[in-house]
């Protein structure tokens, strides 16, 4: 039994009955504009869109009859006639909902060939660093516009113009980059066709559930991994915090992990830039490195081994106790690390001089 208030479309999907749909997206309100989900309902004059029709007690729905079939085919052919369907070159190929619909509904070769192929030749907006917008592949399903309004609350895009000039547009047709778009990529995630596509896309081979490292909201996310590299991130639909949503940083901000600028080995400052690391960490009897004290800003960094670094740090810290020493922890590290660090400060350094950058 379907839930009260459910639409014919969701009820059918729950019951495993296929009703084609293009402009339907479960995350946003239904608009009923693609008209592919039209079904016949007993007692009603016209076919109704399944995505907007609320089920009623005793309602008899025909999801498929020859008339509905023909209607759907004609509508699908119309969409195709207006779509740049060079699927071979389309990155969305294989995951494109339009392709799927063509496979399920099919089309009439004769009729379709009579339709004029009217896909526009508008410039592709590549201004956004994370995703491209190709208006020629757009099917005017308005999912992106609804997403930008209902999910992101930004309204960077809206449907502009009318008739067959209808198109998704930013203010004054400016490139996305120059609009109020915040690049959260929610629209891109939901675009059913190849109109909004990520700039670089690699399929992950596995996913790891984790928490976003940026702001204090702590969105749940899945990191998509290929080899030892993060190739994508997607919001965790089950997270009670973000319910699948992510912002620009959370969705696209992971290159820093793979950045070539990442520190790899411990560094230590030495007087002599040709100094051998091994000579640097020789201890004298008091446990202090022979090179100490270092004169600031004159030395250069040299890479040392972890072993050397740990021994060096341990021995040098041992010289300061209590009021002479302080430690600053990080609001970016884990609870475990913060716990450990304050314990370390209090136990090993014997001071309560521990703080972090909590500005709130």
């Amino acid at each position, binding site marked *: 039994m379907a839930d009260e208030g459910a639409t014919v479309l969701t009820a059918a999907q729950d019951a495993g009955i296929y009703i084609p749909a293009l402009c339907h997206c479960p995350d946003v309100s239904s608009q009923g504009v693609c008209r592919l989900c039209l079904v016949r309902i007993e007692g009603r004059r016209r076919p109704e869109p399944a995505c907007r029709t609320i089920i009623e007690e005793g309602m008899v729905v025909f999801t498929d009859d020859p008339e509905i079939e023909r209607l759907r085919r004609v509508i699908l052919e119309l969409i195709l006639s207006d779509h740049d369907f060079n699927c071979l070159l389309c990155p969305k190929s294989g995951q494109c909902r339009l392709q799927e619909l063509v496979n399920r509904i099919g089309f009439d070769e004769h009729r379709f060939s009579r339709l004029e192929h009217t896909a526009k030749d508008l410039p592709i907006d590549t201004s956004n660093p994370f995703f491209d917008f190709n208006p020629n592949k757009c099917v005017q399903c308005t999912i992106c516009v609804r997403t930008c309004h209902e999910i992101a609350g930004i*309204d*960077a895009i809206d449907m502009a113009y009318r008739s067959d000039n209808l198109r998704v547009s930013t203010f004054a047709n400016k490139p996305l980059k120059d609009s109020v778009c915040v690049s959260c990529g929610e629209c891109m995630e939901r675009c059913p066709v190849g109109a909004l596509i990520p700039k670089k896309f690699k399929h992950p081979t596995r996913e790891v559930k984790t928490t976003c490292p940026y702001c204090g909201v702590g969105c749940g996310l899945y990191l998509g991994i290929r080899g030892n590299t993060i190739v994508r991130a997607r919001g965790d639909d089950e997270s009670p915090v973000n319910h699948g949503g992510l912002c620009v940083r959370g969705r696209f901000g992971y290159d820093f992990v793979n950045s070539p600028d990442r520190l790899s080995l411990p560094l230590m400052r030495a007087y002599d830039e040709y100094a051998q690391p091994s000579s640097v960490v020789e201890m004298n009897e008091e446990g202090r490195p022979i090179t100490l004290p270092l004169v600031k800003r004159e030395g250069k960094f040299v890479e040392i081994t972890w072993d050397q670094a740990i021994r060096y740090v341990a021995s040098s810290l041992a010289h300061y106790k209590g009021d002479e020493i302080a430690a600053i922890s990080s609001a970016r590290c884990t609870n475990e690390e913060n716990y450990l660090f304050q314990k370390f400060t209090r136990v090993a350094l014997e001071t309560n001089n521990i703080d972090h950058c909590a500005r709130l």
Partner: protein
Amino acid sequence: MDIERLNKILAVFEGEQGGLISILQRVQEEFGYLPEVALYSIANFLKLSPSQVFSVATFYDHFYLTRRGDHLVSVCQGTACHVLGARDILETAEKCLGIKTGQTTPDYKYSLKRVACLGSCALAPVVILDDQVHSRMTVRKVKKLLTEDLDRTDPQT
């Protein structure tokens, strides 16, 4: 663009619900078209997103986002006008002004547009030049209307 003038218009609409279209009409009346800056300020004023204002401004026929000519030539393409040869009238107007429908002459003297119906069907075909209805137009009358007026307003050409 004169921000002062714009703000004066906006002030009139303070607190009014759903005034976007009326505001756009007023602003266009004032400036002749809807400059981008104005659309942006209107969005701010109404707490709408600029893209939403743009959406409305591009939906309706009456709004112009680029500067128009000083004189507006509207050629009616209503049913009554159509059967009495409105298409020839429009083509003639295009030829006379040297622009396509929807365009403005480079000297910003004339803009040419087609309108769906002016409700002057009994006088078909009609052409409207700056609010003046010219009825029962023929190809020759259009030529005369547009070339004469051209001569009058701009003796050089």
